[in-house]
Structures are given as structure tokens and as C-alpha cells.
């Protein structure tokens, strides 16, 4: 098992290098001269050249990238052009709300999606199943930011139960978590149901029934673990979707998180900030996927065997 985890960790390194390179490469095309942004339009030619040198912008692209990576390894993401502050520091202050949001969103999604999906599959075509599948369909079709606005309108503005934004008490995280988690919940519910339906028809389920296993054990012991294999993959992907989607949720609920930092960075053409946000988010996503893969091996012995 340790060998497996170790191997997966090793496999993470080229992905992270690739991602940083890709993002760095794409953002190299970003319009706007950073020096002009920093110094303003009236700067002298000399001053511009000096800042260029200082920032290392006079060197070829690949050297710039290697310099950036060398600094990244020491945990230094450079200085923000717009705010002349450390990007790392900014991200560290902005990340807790984003993580909290993603965590609660995922918790809400998974804890409801799995039971609903299972029950829907077991009682296929019942009223329960039909109603919830229509809800799930609406859930995947509803834009999270629109849902967020509707939630604010109903529960914050009209009913006044919870604040409409910010990061005050735990209450302020309720609406954002629901808004962020809903589409994932719907997706996971649908997948759990269809995966369960497929597994229920498998030959080994018939074998289990022929042994005299009762319905509950058939579902929970024999079917669920097999049905969870694609669901776990999907949960991993959804966490990525949530880290991306938090950009929207944070905008709607005015949460000073990483997503906001990113959007502001793009609007101010603050490349180091954009780069920092993306790289940190991607690294977190990769690590989450690593955990998902490890979980995968616990569920499916065939996967574990591949890495022996």
C-alpha cells in the first residue's frame, strides 16, 4: 500500500511541472506590458529598462520560467504587480474561505447524493425516484451563480435568516455551500443511481441472491462497493469543478477568497497573481485527486494490483 501511495506521489511531480509550464506559457501571451502597469504611462525609458531587468523580463521565456520554478520551490510566488505585495501572502489569507466553502459544499453534496442515488436505484421508477430524478436534472441545469442569487433573495433579503454575503459567522457559509454544492450533488446522485442500476444487474449480484443473501446486504455489501468505483472518480472531478466554481460563488456572495483574487488579478492584468492562484489551486486539486486514487485502490482490489 505504501508503495502504491509513493508511486502515485511520484507521478504527481510531472503533472505539477506540466501544469505550471502550461499556465506560465499561456499567460505569457497575456496582453499588457507589466512594466507600464507598475510604473504608469509617464515612466522614462531608463526606468522601464531597469524594472524589466529587475523582474527578469529581459531574459528568454524558458529562463524566466526556470527562475519562476526555482522560486516556487522555495514557496515564493513573486510579487503582485498591482498591489506590490507578496502573492504567497495574499493567497494564504484568501485560501481559508475557499477551502471552507469547497469542503462544506462537497460534504453537503456527497452526504445527500449517495443515499438518494442508492434509494432511487433500488426503487427504480417509484414516485420517490421520479421526483428526485427530476430535481437532480434541474440541479445539474441550474447555474450555480443564479441559484446563489435566488437563495440570497429568498433567505437573506426576504426572510432575513442569514447574511447575504461576507465571511462573518458560520451562518454566512450556509447559502454559498448550498449554491456551490447543488450541481455536484445532482451530478453525483445521477451517477450513483445509474452506476447502482448497472451493478444490480451484474451476474455476481445474482450469485449473491442465489446464496440467500438478503436485499439489504446485497445492496450495501455486494452492490455498493462496485457501484462506488465510478462515483469516487466523479467526486474527485467535482472537487475540481468546485474549486473552479468557487470563483462564481465568491463573486455572488462577496467572499474574499482565492477565486476573487484570481478574477481581480485578471481584471488588473496582474500576471503573478493569476499564476499564483492557478498554480496553488491546481496543486491542491492534484493532491485531492491523489487521495481519490488512493481511495479507489481501497475500494477496488484490481486497481491496487496494478501498482504492486
Amino acid at each position: 500500500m505504501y508503495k502504491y501511495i509513493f508511486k502515485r506521489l511520484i507521478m504527481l511531480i510531472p503533472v505539477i511541472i506540466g501544469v505550471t509550464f502550461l499556465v506560465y506559457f499561456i499567460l505569457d501571451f497575456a496582453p499588457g506590458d507589466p512594466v507600464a502597469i507598475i510604473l504608469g504611462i509617464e515612466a522614462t525609458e531608463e526606468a522601464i529598462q531597469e524594472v524589466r531587468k529587475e523582474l527578469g523580463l529581459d531574459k528568454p521565456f524558458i529562463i524566466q520560467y526556470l527562475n519562476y520554478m526555482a522560486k516556487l520551490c522555495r514557496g515564493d510566488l513573486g510579487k503582485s504587480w498591482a498591489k506590490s505585495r507578496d502573492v504567497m501572502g495574499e493567497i494564504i489569507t484568501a485560501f481559508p474561505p475557499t477551502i471552507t466553502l469547497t469542503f462544506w459544499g462537497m460534504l453537503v453534496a456527497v452526504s445527500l447524493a449517495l443515499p438518494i442515488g442508492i434509494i432511487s436505484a433500488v426503487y427504480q421508477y417509484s414516485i420517490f425516484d421520479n421526483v428526485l430524478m427530476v430535481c437532480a436534472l434541474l440541479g445539474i441545469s441550474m447555474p450555480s451563480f443564479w441559484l446563489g442569487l435566488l437563495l440570497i433573495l429568498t433567505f437573506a433579503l426576504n426572510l432575513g435568516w442569514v447574511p447575504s454575503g461576507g465571511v462573518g459567522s458560520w451562518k454566512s457559509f450556509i447559502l454559498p455551500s448550498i449554491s456551490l454544492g447543488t450541481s455536484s450533488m445532482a451530478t453525483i446522485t445521477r451517477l450513483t443511481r445509474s452506476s447502482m442500476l448497472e451493478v444490480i444487474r451484474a451476474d455476481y449480484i445474482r450469485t449473491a441472491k442465489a446464496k440467500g443473501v438478503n436485499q439489504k446486504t446485497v445492496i450495501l455489501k455486494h452492490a455498493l462497493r462496485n457501484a462506488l468505483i465510478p462515483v469516487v472518480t466523479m467526486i474527485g472531478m467535482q472537487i475540481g469543478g468546485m474549486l473552479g466554481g468557487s470563483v462564481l460563488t465568491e463573486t455572488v456572495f462577496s467572499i474574499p477568497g482565492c477565486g476573487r483574487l484570481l478574477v481581480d488579478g485578471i481584471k488588473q492584468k496582474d500576471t503573478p497573481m493569476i499564476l499564483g492562484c492557478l498554480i496553488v489551486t491546481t496543486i491542491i486539486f492534484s493532491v485531492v485527486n491523489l487521495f481519490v486514487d488512493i481511495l479507489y485502490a481501497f475500494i477496488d482490489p484490481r486497481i491496487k494490483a496494478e501498482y504492486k
Partner: protein
Amino acid sequence: MENNKYLLDMTDVVVHYETDEGIVEAVNGIDIKLAEGKTMGLVGETGCGKTTTALSILRLVPDPPGKVKSGKIILDGVDIMAASEKEMREIRGNVVSMIFQDPMTSLNPVLTVGDQIAEVVAIHNPQMKKEDTVKRAMEMLEVVGIPGERHTEYPHQFSGGMKQRVVIAIALACSPKLLIADEPTTALDVTIQAQVLELMNNLKQQFKTSTIMITHDLGIVAETCDEVSIMYAGSIVERGNLEDVFNNTMHPYTEGLFNSLPDVDNRAAKLKPIPGLMPDPTKLPKGCAFAPRCQYATEQCKTEKPALVKYSDTHYAACLAYQDKNFKLKGWSK
């Protein structure tokens, strides 16, 4: 009561699958009587309703779309149709167990083989301690010729033949009175087939289990069975002991099956396959289902359904041609 003579007594069982495309008449009034300790071969082409018949004994016909429409199944004195779900669970795996066709898919990939054997033991022996069920699982593995210590391994670590051995171990772990083997060797290599068949033959004697051997291979029937039922399009067309069916073949379909076998002794002889295909089970012909493919068929065969008629103490056949006392099959090339 005559019923008590038999371990399994199926009378006029009808099973339909109600699908969007129409009603599939999978089993149309089947009678099967099996005495204790006997082995019966259930022979027929793919799709003729053999597996459905077997599943109806365990009351595991997938519902929906499958429905047991009518008939009576008495297994070991219990009326299967009337039993509660709880009673059925106690019967499954304990009184009757089933070996499925494809060993590749009939074991749960995420559970160890030991767990899967121990589970059936634990269900039917609730007083047994966990260690003892595991011990029993290891014993069963040894019985089917797999080292007991491999019980912690997963199905993907076994070959097809080994998996089928595990399935057999599961089926026999509670010493059931009736074992239904649904084409247990079809998915295996010929050499492995022979091993598995031999194993089953030995175990059948060791565990004193009655067996229904579902197959389309008459060779397997000749080797393992006492009696044979030949099935065609959901009905039994001929029934008897080995002698009756093999040497005094009555039904034209049975004759056709024998004619389709290659003759090892006379390699110059040409195969005589049965012309045509099985009828679509959603649209069975009105008369004898075999009539469209039968070389002896008359006008009467197209309109009248033949009943299973008794010709000797053991031998039954469903063919209208025998209303003519002088009728004889043309025989096959032997």
C-alpha cells in the same frame, strides 16, 4: 401423495418477459420431475428458456420484466410459489444452489473468494462463529482443488477454470439437496471443461446432491446424467432416461440435435444441421414450435400444439407424428 416421491416437482410452469417490444414467452408450461440423487440434463439451444426455467426454481427470474405466470414448483416439500421471501432466502444456497454460466462475471470483484464462500456458510448457519465459517471456506476451496490459503485472494487473481471451481465451492458449501448447473463449462477451455466436469461428478456423489445439468452439449449429458429433457422454444419436447433418448430417439428435434454432432468414428459422414432458426419467442407459431424446421411436419403440425405423451414408463415425447402408429424417424447417419 405422489409429489413426495420427487425432490423437485415442477408442473406446468409458464414464465413470460413483458418487454416494450412485446411479450417474450420464455417458458411455456414445463414439467420437470427429479428424484433425489438423480442427475437430469436439460438440453436445448441458446435462448430456449433453460436458464429461465432454472431461475424460476430459485424464484430469481428478474422481475421486471420477468413474470412467472402460472404453474407449481414443489422443492423438497416446499411450495416455491407460495413461500415468503424470508423462506426463499433460507432455501437459496441451502436447499438449492446454482452455478452460473460465466465464471468471469459471477464472482464479486471486490470481495475475497474466501469471504464469498464464508458468506453463504454464515447465512445458513447463523450460530457459527466467524472463524469457523472462514475455516469452512478454506475446506471448501481444498475440496474443489484450490489451496485453502488462497482464500484471501480476489477473483481477478484466479483463472477462468479456478473461478468456476470457486463458484462450485460456493454452491456446495451448505451441501444443498439440489444443484443447478447452468452451462457450467461453456465458457471454459476444453481441457479445463473435462477437469471441472470430473470434479462436479465426484462432488455430486460425495455430497449426494441431485443435479440439473443445463447444457447444449449432448456429450456432457451422456457423461454425467441419468435422465434427459430436451427443450425447444420454452417447452419440453422429449423426456426420458439416457437409453430412451439416446437410443430410441422419438422427437424430430432430438434427432436433429444428434445429426448436428460430428461423428468421430466416421469422419467422411457429412453433418446434417437442422435447417432454419429458433422461432422468435415473442411470436411463437400457433402449432408445434418446431414445425417450420421439421422435415416430417404436416399441415396438422402447423395448427395443433402437441402435448407431451407417455410412450413408456420413463419416455415422453411431444410430437403429433406418432398419432400414426407406424411412424418412425429416418434415423441418423450411424
